[in-house]
């Protein structure tokens, strides 16, 4: 039933070795060292660091509170509001700065959550096989064919509460399947490795085998999956917020765009209000994509630059 996905389990062991080795020398996580060595990836990491920095220090960096609406509404960039103000009289720049928090939080939380779900489902299905696998695979495939955005819209629109965590939840439960599938196929190739057999003969328990023998050989896949999930989550949040399904009380780039769109930014010619969230968003996505390049190359030796 899984004939159709273009997923080839890539043997990532080679990469893991390099990662483990790199880690031993520097006491930082090995995958990080590997990523850092890749030029594209390094640029991405630096960009990401900037976003993280901005997000963490938002209260310090932002000139005003994001919801402080004490300014003249709907004015273009000027001395006190560098990017102008919203129709509600809020400072666009401050919203932009605080928006980084939301995007990163969503990316991190939804990325983690969907990675965890994907890992749990994928590992269970792949390691146990049999009926469990059949059932879980069915759900994986189901989740893959169900059109995600309509589902997200439905869930987000009909959930009893609005809020960032709802969005995170919705994104996670609609976005785990691809990762689960990749992980499942990877564990299927890994579980028949001789060293797994050896671990069984060494008397290790199944849980220990999964955690200590298999997982370390999947870190790059997990990292790739996590980055992919982050990208999807950040994009999903922006999309939902843009459609007005987000939480209007949280400041995110998506809600900014939504409010810029409905608040007449085009009408009043406030290009900065319209452009800035998009550019910030694209910047964060570029950072993550560049990092993903490195991670991809890490797990797929064919893609290494030479």
């Amino acid at each position, binding site marked *: 039933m899984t004939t159709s996905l273009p997923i080839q389990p890539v043997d990532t*062991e080679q990469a893991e*070795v390099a990662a483990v080795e790199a880690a031993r020398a520097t006491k930082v996580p090995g995958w990080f060292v590997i990523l850092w060595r890749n030029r594209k990836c390094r640029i991405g990491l630096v960009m990401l660091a900037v976003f993280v920095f901005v997000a963490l220090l938002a209260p310090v960096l932002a000139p005003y509170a994001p919801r402080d609406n004490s300014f003249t509404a709907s004015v273009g960039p000027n001395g006190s509001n560098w990017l102008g103000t919203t129709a509600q009289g809020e400072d666009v720049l401050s919203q932009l700065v605080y928006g980084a928090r939301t995007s990163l939080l969503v990316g991190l939380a939804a990325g983690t959550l969907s990675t965890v779900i994907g890992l749990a489902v994928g590992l269970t299905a792949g390691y146990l096989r049999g009926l469990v696998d059949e059932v879980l695979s069915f759900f994986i495939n189901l989740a893959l064919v169900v059109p995600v955005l309509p589902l997200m819209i439905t869930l987000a629109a009909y959930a009893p509460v609005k809020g960032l965590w709802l969005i995170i939840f919705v994104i996670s439960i609609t976005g785990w399947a691809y990762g689960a599938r990749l992980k499942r196929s990877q564990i299927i190739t890994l579980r028949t490795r*001789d*060293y797994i057999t*050896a671990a069984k003969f*060494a*008397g290790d328990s199944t849980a220990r085998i999964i955690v200590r*023998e298999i997982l370390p050989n999947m870190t790059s896949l997990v990292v790739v999956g996590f980055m992919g999930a982050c990208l999807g989550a950040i994009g999903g949040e922006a999309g939902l917020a843009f459609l007005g399904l987000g939480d209007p009380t949280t400041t995110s780039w998506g809600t900014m765009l939504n409010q810029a769109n409905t608040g007449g930014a085009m009408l009043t010619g406030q290009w900065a209000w319209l452009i800035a969230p998009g550019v910030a968003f694209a910047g964060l996505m570029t950072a993550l994509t560049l990092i993903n390049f490195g991670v991809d190359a890490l797990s797929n030796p064919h893609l290494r630059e030479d």
Partner: protein
Amino acid sequence: MALLEVDDLSVTYSPRDGTPVRAVDGVSFEIADGEFVGLLGESGSGKSTLGNAILRLLDKPAAVSGGSVRFDGVAVTSASEEEIRPLRWAKISTVFQSSMNSLNPVITIGAQFADTFAAHGREGDPATLLDLVSLDADVLRRYPHELSGGMKQRVALALALALEPKFVLLDEPTTGLDVVVQHNILQRLRELQSQLGFAVLFISHDLGTVMEMADRVMVMYAGELVEDQPARAMMSAQLHPYTQGLLGSYADPRATEISVDYIPGRPPDLSRPQVGCRFAARCPVAIDDCSTQHPQLLPAGAGTARCLLVERAGLVDARRARSFVAVRAEAPAVDPVLTVTDAAKEYRGKRAVDGVSFELRPGQVTALVGQSGSGKTTIARLVTGVERPTSGSVTFTGGVDVGSLRGRKLRAYRRHTQLVFQDPFAALNPTRTPAYALSRPLQNHLGLSKAQARTRAGELLETVGLHPASQYLDKLPHQLSGGQRQRVVIARALAPEPRILVADEPISMLDVSIRAEILELLDNLVRTRQLGMLYITHDLLSARLLADEVLVLNEGQVVERGRTLQVIQNAQATYTQELLDAIPNPVTRS
């Protein structure tokens, strides 16, 4: 002018974030029309890189860094791709190492012939070509995945001959195939070569095969040619100590007393600058100068050799420097530790194993010999309790029915039955150190503390010859050579102090020069620790070296069994005969 002239060719791998490695270093040789030349070398010796350089198929990051290749008067290394193209296949063709993957999976065999002809504006009859390699014409309509490995390799061979080339480069053409199939294909190749008269460069790590096939043999070590002699001459007198060591690893299993050589150590790291003889570190007869002076490839014997000693003394004798002598005294009659009685195993109605009976006795080795699919591995699974026999029984000492063990009891049983795997690269978790790998069975089965386990792991490493253990405990598997890894695997198997060792092809993935070394280790361990060992192999020679008793398996059934020497000297079953014939035997070839 020779057909192929390789002059001082060097190939360097320059990865973007790594030190450059000179994989081929100043290699020069010629091949004449119709000549069948063997190129022998261990993995990493640069032989395949050399082949790719000749074919001009080097991909980044590898590139020719010096010297030239001329083929039929065309400077292969410097010509443009368009100048080379008419040469390709029409004059120089090839068969790659992995037949599994060298055919386009999405077009038919016929189409692959057709586009070959089309690319050169030629016409030909693929059916005749297939006939040459004993394949039916209906193969043309089929896709590669519908063919067996042997058939694919035959197709690849037929394809290589499609345009009647003057030269065929064969890069390990039969690796991964069953011995008997391998044997047949090579026979056919040899016949075709003498019939059609093309020249061959035959690249292989298997000295026996090369010796048997080639007119002339070149030996490569660490990127350099170290010896180049006519096969016959080489057989009787190997010049380089390395060649001598390699040849020493062959023996006639039928001999009453046999011994095989091995060359301890591993090839040098080519990413570092090389001084002196590259083989010096492993050479049993090296002198002081060897580590400082780099020898040249100079005429010697019937060809050339690269050795200071040969240079100075004309001949060296490095043979029997390190060898494993199999002396099989009549095994004492002791009680078996495991008894397999009339065991059978069915998968989906197909009998993988049928009516097999044998015993494993302490201090003795029982060998299961057969090709893939013969049921050897299934028997191993029965013995280790992974599978339960469909009928018959597997009984461990004390009347334990292995097939019925589950859960904790199975775990307890596994303490006594440990595995040595075929591929040392897959048998160790790439992210775990030997210290970890060894401490697991120690902690789980013997209940040692973490610190005790570590001490013990060190002792075990010493036992398997990894000395000093402290150097190896915290290395990662990829930092170890194949032989070292296999020693770690063996150490891990010994850790819980098992009664039974099941070794599934433990040497088949290792370089020829060190196989005997591992066999010797296993032999020692079995005898001194009184282990009952099940040795699974396709190779009668190694069975002859190690085993007290041998069972020859074919399609799940034992076709012949008995004392090893008796079975081999006195093979009754045709299948055993075939296996014996398939052993390349340069020593006994006359």
